[in-house]
């Protein structure tokens, strides 16, 4: 009986606060199917509940493209994200709250990806292999499975003046 309660608790701990930024639950199959095609299925903890609510209310014009869903699917995913969102600011365990709904412009993202950190440099973002900061999987090779551990980062080989 007790074990049945313990296991989810442990899993929640492992999935835990994003401060370390390493362990995140894998995205659910539905979340990955619906929100992991054009971009990686972002870890829900990268935005707080209010930001996810804004995103899910505006899918018909989602950063310039139509990402609309059938309403039942949208409602299910909104609940999924709300349940896993970062706590709002003020909670000491909360990861830094992004300033906008665009994860890649959040103060947290920019700090984690600042020049010189983990071998990052400005030119790398512009290589064909990366192209855009939203292309998480270019360096975080296990991003699709929800894993962003520093041990699983592999920067693309910089080819300089490459052409494709």
């Amino acid at each position, binding site marked *: 009986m007790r074990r049945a309660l313990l296991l989810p608790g442990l899993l929640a701990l492992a999935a835990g606060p994003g401060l370390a930024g390493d362990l995140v639950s894998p995205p659910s199959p539905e979340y990955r199917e619906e929100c992991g095609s*054009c971009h990686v299925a972002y870890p829900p903890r990268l935005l707080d509940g209010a930001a996810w609510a804004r995103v899910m209310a505006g899918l018909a014009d989602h*950063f310039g*493209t139509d990402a609309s869903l059938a309403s039942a699917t949208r409602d299910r995913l909104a609940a999924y994200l709300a349940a896993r969102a970062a706590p709002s600011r003020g909670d000491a365990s909360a990861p830094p709250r992004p300033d906008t709904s665009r994860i890649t412009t959040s103060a947290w993202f920019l700090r984690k990806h600042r020049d010189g950190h983990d071998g990052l440099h400005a030119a790398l973002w512009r290589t064909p292999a990366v192209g*855009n900061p*939203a292309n998480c999987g270019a360096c975080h090779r296990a991003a699709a499975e929800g894993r962003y551990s520093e041990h699983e980062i592999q920067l693309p080989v910089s080819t300089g003046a490459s052409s494709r």
Partner: protein
Amino acid sequence: MPKLPRQTPLLALLLGLLPLHAGAQSAAGLLERYSEEARREAPAYAASAARGEALFHQRGKDDWRCAGCHTDKPVVAGRHLVTGKPIAPLAPAANPERFNDAARAEKWFRRNCKDVFERPCSAAEKGDLLAYLLEQRP
């Protein structure tokens, strides 16, 4: 990249979902369905790969076009124009997951036609596009 598909046939079998009760569950079946729908408007309609190819390359809003993300040769992987995320090949011969689920195909036609052409695609256009994609061989 998607790991799911490998398990899908077994799961479907176990759940008894294989019967095609939901309508078109193959690219060829979907083409037939779009063709039937188009013939209700224009009885002489026959899906045309040539028209589909032209539409696939036609420039729309902000110069976007289907081929922009799905490449000029949709049997190879493309990438999202904005995010850079790789996109698996679109042609069914290169990727059997494509167009094997009518609801999913409709969802993407709805989104992508709006993004590129700023309007929904007609059944005739979807039939043409599918006829073109079905002709592509790796």
